């Protein structure tokens, strides 16, 4: 079983919601759509579901063109950010509703509802109505209903966004396991890079209706195809500095020069943008940190175990993530250090030309 989008576009009036997206999703896979609000995640899901026809392009299921087939004629399960349940029905009836529609026999309904309720830990709640449940339990009910349907395509549109932080952590861990067993194609939309990383699977990063990259989640994180993908897929945001490579020497903004080694080696002369993650920008010189730069502290955020030090350097705003508590006064000068082997290098068009070598870095 596979779902293929072929050059799918969605244009409404003068606005382009989806621009030439091609994706192939395999059964049993978890696919994260990662992008900010209005980047096209929901529209793309609606096209996959058949809730909306694409303006151009085709949607194929196992090679069969289903582009014009409406959602009712497909077998799709969808869970939304809002907790959507039938308010007057019990949890049992809510979960059973897709089975009743398909006319399954009584004992099978019973068995499958019990099974789904067990997986989502809803057994004690089966007799209650959704209004008597907490937000987490309401969303579990909606998820159970999606699960029980045994649809080959399950679409989850920011399903945890309205839940408490800790509940999100729990469900995020459970969800992939629960749906993995069903063998469905699971599509999960989120705005949060950390959520994509915790879910694993594959990730498609979206920016203004375009899929900028699609691949195994951790690989997209380690080797973002371009600067936009790197920005979409980083939390805390990636730091950037412009540089010029000339004759084996890299000259960074802020008057720092260094020999073009590591990811910078063997690059043609010209302007580049260097990106580095906040956890690689150090407040104290570590082994391999051959780049030293002076900046100014603009604000420090302390999480209890770590500090996010916002550093202003030559017009750029950087974040350094340091272990431990660092109380630094805003406005104070600060030296920050960086290992050139941890640099992402983007060319003048924003395309990735070199990424940190994992083997060398580890």
């Amino acid at each position: 079983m596979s779902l293929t989008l072929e050059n799918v576009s969605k244009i409404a009036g003068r606005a382009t919601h989806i621009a030439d997206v091609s994706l192939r999703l395999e059964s049993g896979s978890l696919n994260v759509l990662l992008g900010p609000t209005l980047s096209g995640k929901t529209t793309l899901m609606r096209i996959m579901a058949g809730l909306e026809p694409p303006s151009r392009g085709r949607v194929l299921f196992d090679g069969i063109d289903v582009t014009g087939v409406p959602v009712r004629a497909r077998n799709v399960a969808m869970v939304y950010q809002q907790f959507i349940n039938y308010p007057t029905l019990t949890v049992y009836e809510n979960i059973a509703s897709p089975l009743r529609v398909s006319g399954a026999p009584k004992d099978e309904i019973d068995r499958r509802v019990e099974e789904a309720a067990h997986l989502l830990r809803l057994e004690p709640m089966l007799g209650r109505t959704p209004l008597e449940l907490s937000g987490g339990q309401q969303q579990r009910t909606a998820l159970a209903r999606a699960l029980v349907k045994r649809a080959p395509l399950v679409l989850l549109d920011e399903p945890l966004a309205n839940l408490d932080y800790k509940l999100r952590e729990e469900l995020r861990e459970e969800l992939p396991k629960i749906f993995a067993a069903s063998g469905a194609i699971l599509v999960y939309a989120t705005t949060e890079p950390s959520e994509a990383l915790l879910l694993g699977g594959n990730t498609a990063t979206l920016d203004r209706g375009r899929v900028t990259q699609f691949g195994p989640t951790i690989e997209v994180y380690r080797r973002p195809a371009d600067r936009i993908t790197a920005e979409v897929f980083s939390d805390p945001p990636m730091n950037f500095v412009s540089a010029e490579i000339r004759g084996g020497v890299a000259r960074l903004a802020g008057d720092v020069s260094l020999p073009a080694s590591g990811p910078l080696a063997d690059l043609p002369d010209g302007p580049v943008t260097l990106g580095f993650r906040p956890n690689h920008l150090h407040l104290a010189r570590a082994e391999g940190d051959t780049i030293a730069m002076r900046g100014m502290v603009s604000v420090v955020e302390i999480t209890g175990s770590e500090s996010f030090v916002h550093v202003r350097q030559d017009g750029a705003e950087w974040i350094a993530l340091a272990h431990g508590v660092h109380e630094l006064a805003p406005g104070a000068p600060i030296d920050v250090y960086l290992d050139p082997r941890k640099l992402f290098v983007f060319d003048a068009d924003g395309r990735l030309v070199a990424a940190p070598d994992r083997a060398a870095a580890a």
Partner: protein
Amino acid sequence: MAAITLDHLAHSYKAHPEAPSDYALRRLDITWRDGGAYALLGPSGCGKTTLLNIISGLVTPSEGKVLFDGRDVTNIPTEQRNIAQVFQFPVVYDTVSVYDNLAFPLRNRGIRQAEVDRRVREIAGMLDLNADLDRRASHLTADAKQKISLGRGLVRADTAAILFDEPLTVIDPQLKWELRAQLKQLHAQVGRTMIYVTHDQTEAMTFADTVVVMYDGAVVQVGTPAELFTKPAHTFVGYFIGSPGMNVLPAKIEGRTAYVGGSRINLSRGYPRLAEGQKIEIGIRPEDIRLAPGGDGLPITINRVDDIGRIRIARAQLAEHALNIVVPEEARIPGDGVHAQPIPERVHVYADGHLVEGEA
């Protein structure tokens, strides 16, 4: 500007509360200093919103008093309390300009036009809204709208406190970083008392100097972010703060050793005062465990390793207990015969959920 005192405060939505469970908010006594940054942190239903509504005057507490700078405001309505509030979803006056939105609270109080103009431009400058002053508020993005709601609180010179009710809920992660930093800078600049309600530990910890952790209608710990992280007063705090949360394992304590199942864990202190019949547990943060290829430590099996970029989380098993271990990006994870070594100074002992101080 004001210091806020909550004096014997409690609230029940029932007419005649009896059991502690009848209270949405159990008794608490807290003083918040003038100009401080505070956070109320807890899961939904923990009473943090009730507490916020009591401070803003939307709910009158059934017991106790609320004092602003020593003045009893318990029965004073919201509009006379000089507080400002930023809500979960942006509340702006859609049909008028950003300028008129910011000027609104001042005009309502009959401030002179010249003064209104000066204040509005000053606050718009702080919030980076200068370029948008003439635009209609409905045309703006969610983060700009939240800034406007905040700005309406900041323009008034007499604001006693600014309350935030999960203000970043509808903001994208990348913008959250900017807004959070801006808010922190603003607090330093204007020095108003700010109270921030959230279920998100990162938001609470990064914003506040003092975090009040609430659970089931009660305050379970008040402390700095570092205190909450390194010394959780309750297993709930350990679980709720940190991600993944603290590992909590049932244990038996003898001298300076904790026994979990058949495994021994060294402690840095002794606990001679533990009473019989108490539920004894130890808490270890996933960050405070090292992995070693063998020898000392706890024999564990690693079920799965989640690579989440800058760290990896080893999902391990110690006998029948699950154990999360945070492994730094570049550290190696040993293969067979892997042992977990908790840092003895960072292992906490809990009796019936509450932290027990050890003795040297």
